[in-house]
């Protein structure tokens, strides 16, 4: 009864193809947006900002990026960490070279730079496919991390090899650096995520997104019906890297403030978790990217609470448990629900359609 579409007539093609065709979805989404923009900023504190909300927003962006490449275009990538590092280090370099540039512009430029790097590393995808490509993206991962670790120009010859963010203002309020208030960093990320999220959703719904999906489903057939593989694959790499680059820039500038590349953007600490997000959230689903990011960000906090605070295990043992549980969840999801949390949500919607009646 809650989710019924009875009585909602579409009289134009446009309204039939809206992002949220159902009134219930519209209401739900608008309430969420209202809460996110108007309620949360007034109640947010440092813990919620640093532990949950900001990482959730940043990883949602990364997950959307990887989902575009892997979920929609079918090109498995294990190089997410490397591309995020490109975003982070371009932000740092632009920030230090042009001190007057607005931080929002810096972040977007970093995204564009990452997109260019993504195109370069996407070139092999035209020749090689599947596992071979997955391994080839590892080349990007290891090469980029090595580059930022070994070439001192990228970290301005600092002795530690770390890069540190300096304070930048947005409408007179600091959004980066130690003095930034929680609501400012949160809103900064939120605005970017909402804008880029809509951009991604609309790309997926339009011609370019459909050609990505055609390539994913069968590239030879897609080529025969006139989808250019070169343009399509490279555009997927570019768009995906743009999103991942922006999230890397935010991860460095807004979230952590100081970064050591081998630690933060390693394959184990970055590439795999983002891959988990899109698998658990749902391959080829926008909603899934958000659900997966939320799940992966909150899972360690929940597990730590249960195991360390309630049961009383030591942090090290709890960490080992956490690793196994991650892997276990991944296997269970692949076996039980290969379409992830997003699919669970659509099943729930289906159930809600006729609930509480059996038919």
């Amino acid at each position, binding site marked *: 009864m809650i989710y019924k579409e009875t009585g909602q007539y579409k009289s134009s093609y446009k309204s039939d193809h809206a992002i949220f065709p159902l009134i219930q979805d519209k209401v739900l989404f608008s309430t969420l947006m209202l809460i996110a923009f108007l309620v949360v900023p007034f109640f947010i504190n440092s813990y919620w900002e640093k532990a949950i909300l900001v990482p959730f927003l940043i990883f949602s962006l990364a997950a959307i990026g990887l989902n575009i490449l892997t979920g929609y275009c079918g090109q498995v990538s294990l190089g997410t960490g490397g591309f995020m590092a490109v975003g982070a280090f371009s932000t740092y370099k632009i920030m230090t070279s042009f001190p007057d540039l607005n931080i929002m512009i810096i972040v977007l430029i970093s995204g564009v730079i990452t997109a260019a790097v993504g195109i370069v590393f996407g070139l092999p995808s035209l020749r090689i496919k599947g596992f071979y490509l997955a391994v080839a993206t590892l080349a990007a991962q290891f090469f980029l991390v090595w580059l930022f670790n070994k070439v001192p120009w990228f970290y301005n010859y600092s002795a530690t090899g770390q890069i540190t963010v300096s304070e930048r203002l947005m409408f007179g309020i600091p959004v980066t650096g130690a003095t930034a208030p929680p609501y400012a960093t949160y809103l900064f990320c939120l605005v970017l995520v909402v804008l880029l999220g809509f951009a991604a959703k609309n790309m997926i719904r339009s011609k370019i997104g459909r050609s990505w999906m055609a390539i994913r489903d069968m590239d030879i057939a897609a080529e025969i019906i006139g989808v250019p593989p070169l343009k399509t694959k490279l555009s997927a790499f570019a768009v995906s890297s743009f999103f991942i680059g922006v999230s890397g820039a935010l991860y460095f500038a807004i979230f952590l403030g100081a970064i050591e590349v081998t630690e933060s953007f390693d394959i184990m600490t970055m590439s*795999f978790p983002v891959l988990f997000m899109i698998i658990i959230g749902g391959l080829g689903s926008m909603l899934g990217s958000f659900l997966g990011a939320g799940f992966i960000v909150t899972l360690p906090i929940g597990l730590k609470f249960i195991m360390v605070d309630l049961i009383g295990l030591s942090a090290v043992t709890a960490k080992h448990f956490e690793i196994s549980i991650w892997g276990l969840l991944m296997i269970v999801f692949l076996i039980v629900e290969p379409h992830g949390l997003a699919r669970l949500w659509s099943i729930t919607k289906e159930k809600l359609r006729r609930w509480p009646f059996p038919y």
Partner: protein
Amino acid sequence: MSVDLLNFIETVLNGLMSGVMYSLVALGFVLIFKASGVFNFAQGVFALFAALTLVGYQTGQVPFAHLINELFGTNYHHWYASMPNFLAIILTMITMIALAWVIERLVLKHLINQEPIILFMATIGLAFVLEGVGDLMWGSNVKVLDVGIPSGGSEWLEQATIGLAPEGSDYYGMYVDVLNVWASVIAVVLVVSLALFSQYTKTGRALRAVADDHQAALSVGISLRTIWVLVWAISGFIAMVAGIMWGTESGVQFSLSLIALKALPVLILGGFTSIPGAIIGGLMIGVGEKLAEIYIGGFFQIGALENWFAYVMALVFLLFRPQGLFGEKIIERV
């Protein structure tokens, strides 16, 4: 011979040796991929798990000791002081076989007919599970593994090569780790026995049949599931050998599981489906890496090229041969 030439030979020799170590890991990948079409990302963690288990048996650690102690406030450490290597290795083998069986039961069985990429991601999950469980069982501290394989520089080779350099030059002879020589010998034995096994035994024939065509194999009465358990057990065994070798060289610790990442370029270079490919790919990558480290890295005054050179090298080969050097030609149909 000039010192430069001798140095070059030494680099190549060491590269070949470390290449053999990569091949050992890659071999496990190829076996599983051929027989079940699964690209087993967990192979490296298999090696780690086997090495951890071996050390655990050797030193008589109580499995899950940390967990039990923390939960119940007890203080268990060891069952017994030590166990003969021979027995410990056999017990580890049994454990790996049991592990293969469990994996088939709990994971693979439910993923039959899924797309290869789904299976691949499942093995990434498996890698995490095994890593966590391995650490929980045996603790995450760095352990020393010693099964009596000699290691250290070869005195004999050093003495033998010292005389080759011209008079009066500061040449100290070549350095080759004896452990690596042993690893090469063991790898050769392993490959030969695998080849003999698959050519001349009934099970081996069944293995090859499954690798060729699952359905045809099923229709002549070969049990797919038994074969899969067998293949996973064999690659568990290879992982154990690799784990022993790598563990002896650098201690048993988490980084051991990263050798899987080292073996991946070997695989794509040699081709996923070819055992000789795994060997030759490993040797090429080993030599290429060492040469790059010394000559390219030395030229640009920059280190740690080893981290990525193998991947780029494999990538360049792939651009010309997308199926790897020895892989089966990829034929796609619409």
